[in-house]
């Protein structure tokens, strides 16, 4: 079965990232597929390439990256939510003449069409609210 996962909460400020990561891993471990993880609202902060948590805490950024690199999981942050919150890839940073990009390389920026595509084409849409 193909799962769409939506994350609304910021890493650490909300537990939604922890829950979504546990769920995503369980989807893979039980032999199912992740259609996409779509980050919306404050969830886009999960795409930060600048998180440096204490060593005795979960490195949420690294865990999302592992999902992408080991399982090809599609991690998408919503462009409008990202721009508002300063989650910019290098293209957007140049476009808006910002001093730096902030998005981690395993995330892609895309529009709400990807959220709707997930809602339509995944077998199940699971949302982790803030």
């Amino acid at each position, binding site marked *: 079965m193909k799962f769409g996962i939506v994350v*609304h909460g910021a890493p650490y400020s909300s537990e939604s990232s922890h829950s979504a990561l546990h769920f995503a891993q369980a989807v893979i471990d039980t032999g199912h597929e992740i259609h996409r993880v779509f980050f*919306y*609202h404050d969830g886009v902060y999960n795409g930060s390439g600048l998180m440096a948590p204490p060593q005795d805490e979960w490195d949420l950024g690294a865990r999302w990256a592992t999902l992408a690199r080991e399982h090809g999981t599609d991690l998408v942050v919503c462009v409008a939510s990202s721009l*508002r919150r300063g989650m910019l890839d290098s293209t957007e940073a140049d476009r808006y003449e910002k001093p730096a990009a902030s998005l981690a390389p395993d995330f892609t920026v895309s529009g*709400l*069409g990807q959220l709707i595509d997930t*809602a*339509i084409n995944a077998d199940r*849409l699971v*949302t982790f609210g803030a």
Partner: protein
Amino acid sequence: MAKLLFIQSKAPHGSLFGQEGLDAILMGTAFAECNVLLVEDGIYQVLKAQDTRELGTKDYSVTYKALPDYGVSTIYCSERHLLARGLTPDDLVVPVEPLGNDAIKQLMADHTAILGF
């Protein structure tokens, strides 16, 4: 055929959920049959007379008026939650169809996915 239900449950201005939820609704209408349900403080998103000029947030209640142009012919709300807030449909910027709890349960079950904000 996909049929998406968008549920708005948060008040405007205190968070961005309502505004970003509405953006998702507008995008959804381009790809699927969509319905909108306002529950709890989500009903406040369409309260009349919102004036955001001093505050500086966006008054997106007006965008709800455009939803019929996007194919959302009816905006549903919880009748109980409307009354609990001392409101009637006349207090809102758009026509709404208040539903009882049983009708809302049926509305939810009639869709292929639920997106909540």
